[in-house]
């Protein structure tokens, strides 16, 4: 395996399956790929998300721009906007061999569907122009206006063969649970293009961020991503998405992973009892999930003692986890410290890199 020496230390090569790039300036970097009509639209009307608030996120963040305070590029601009700083602060010293770009606040979950499609397309161009064409370690996410499945299929078919893209990206809070048939054309196109579908925490579904209503605090939203993800996964299982699309690969991003075993135990039990309601689900949910679902590791849960996490990872399967840091966000998982437990060499390499290379077909 390739290693890079940093001073005296030899650092393990890693994949980072969740990096967040952001435009330095929308007029400079995105407008070239956006028609004048949509430039004017944005400047006049702004971007309307599927949420009640006219601007801004539903809760204030733990740090400004939800970013590490030390991730502001010295040359200026927002965290994640400067490739050379990302290289010097993160990609090089952490020996990132593969980085998956997941742009956020980039046209998804937007109510004006035509604008959503245009902006996603522009961001797809931007990722290649500013990131993957300049840095071979990075791969882009194919942004789609997922609330418009037909437009999404067009975008997938447009870029499907382009090796700049490693996956298709959606956000986890969708207008309807993601397993519902409205979204099936997306899964079909993903299988046709042989691209995994990655679903990243957050989004603009319009529903309160918990099933019990709107929580008061940001911390409740942060822990709530695990619940959102469990709900969308349950939907995909019971709607029969994995049966209907047996080659579909699903990646759950930035929801942690320790919650998965208990969910599979619950779903298996319900499936056993309620087969008549959902006859189209012919195999146990735990089996479907084990075959077709992967999870990125960040934010890695922190049990005490930490060794409890070994049990959880055994129950999920070492081969199912994809290391991610979430650079440059504040809840960043530092590669050398995030998994502070003794594991075998093979497991470590799988966890930190090999699983990702295998899943994305980059071995």
């Amino acid at each position, binding site marked *: 395996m390739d290693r890079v020496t940093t001073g005296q230390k030899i650092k393990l090569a890693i994949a980072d399956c969740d990096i967040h790039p952001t435009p330095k300036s929308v007029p400079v970097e995105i407008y070239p790929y956006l028609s004048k009509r949509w430039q004017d639209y944005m400047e006049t009307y702004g971007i309307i998300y599927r949420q009640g608030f006219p601007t801004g996120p539903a809760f204030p963040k733990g740090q400004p721009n939800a970013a590490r305070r*030390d991730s502001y590029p010295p040359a200026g601009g927002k965290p994640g906007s400067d490739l050379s700083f990302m290289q010097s602060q993160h990609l090089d010293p952490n020996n990132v061999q593969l980085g998956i770009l997941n742009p956020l606040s980039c046209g998804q979950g937007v109510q004006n569907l035509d604008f959503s499609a245009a902006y996603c397309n522009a961001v797809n161009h931007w990722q290649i122009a500013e990131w993957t064409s300049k840095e071979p370690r990075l791969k882009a996410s194919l942004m789609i206006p997922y609330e418009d499945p037909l437009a999404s299929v067009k975008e997938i078919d447009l870029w499907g063969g382009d090796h700049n893209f490693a996956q298709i990206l959606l956000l986890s809070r969708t207008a309807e649970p993601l397993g519902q048939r409205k979204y099936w054309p997306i899964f079909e196109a993903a299988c046709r293009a042989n691209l995994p579908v990655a679903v990243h925490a957050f989004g603009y579904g319009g529903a309160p961020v918990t099933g019990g209503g709107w929580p008061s605090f940001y911390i409740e939203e942060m822990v709530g991503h695990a619940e959102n993800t469990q709900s969308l996964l349950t939907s995909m299982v019971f709607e029969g998405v994995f049966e209907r699309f047996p080659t579909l690969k699903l990646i759950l991003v930035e929801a942690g992973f320790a919650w998965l075993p208990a969910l599979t135990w619950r779903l298996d039990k319900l499936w056993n009892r309620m087969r008549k309601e959902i006859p189209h689900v012919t195999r146990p949910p735990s089996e479907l999930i084990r075959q077709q679902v992967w999870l990125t590791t960040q934010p890695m849960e922190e049990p005490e003692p930490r060794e409890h996490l070994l049990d959880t990872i055994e129950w999920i399967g070492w081969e199912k986890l994809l290391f991610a840091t979430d650079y440059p966000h504040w809840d960043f998982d530092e590669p050398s410290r995030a998994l502070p437990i003794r594991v075998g060499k093979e497991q470590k390499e799988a966890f930190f890199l090999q699983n990702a290379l295998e899943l994305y077909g980059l071995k």
Partner: protein
Amino acid sequence: MARYVVASVTEILPGERKLVTVRGRPIVIFNLDGEYFGILDRCPHQGASLCKGRLVGLVDAPRPGEYSFCRKGEIIRCPWHGWEFDIRTGKSRCEPESIKATQYDVGVKRGSEVIDESYEAETFDVVIESDYVVVNV
């Protein structure tokens, strides 16, 4: 343990901080109202540089909804996950008895004492009449 001169007092005024390296250890020196404190510049959580964090005060609440604020400028908040550390003691606010930032013994010495008492001052031309921040490592 040895004693090291890391700065002259005029380099770190009240409310300021300076990152120094002593025997390979990055240590951030804070000046709180004329008193100096030193903490290892590695958050005990995942190793972030505490020097890049924000100096805050202590927000507490005896009851839900009743906020109190004190000790302005005496808490350093990690630039990553936001863990709060009391600069005076190194203790975390969240779990003070079990989570601490490594503290170093820091004081102020006159130039004349420094010269007489064999402090390590490799990078300094010590002036007898000036005051210096010294760290025990």
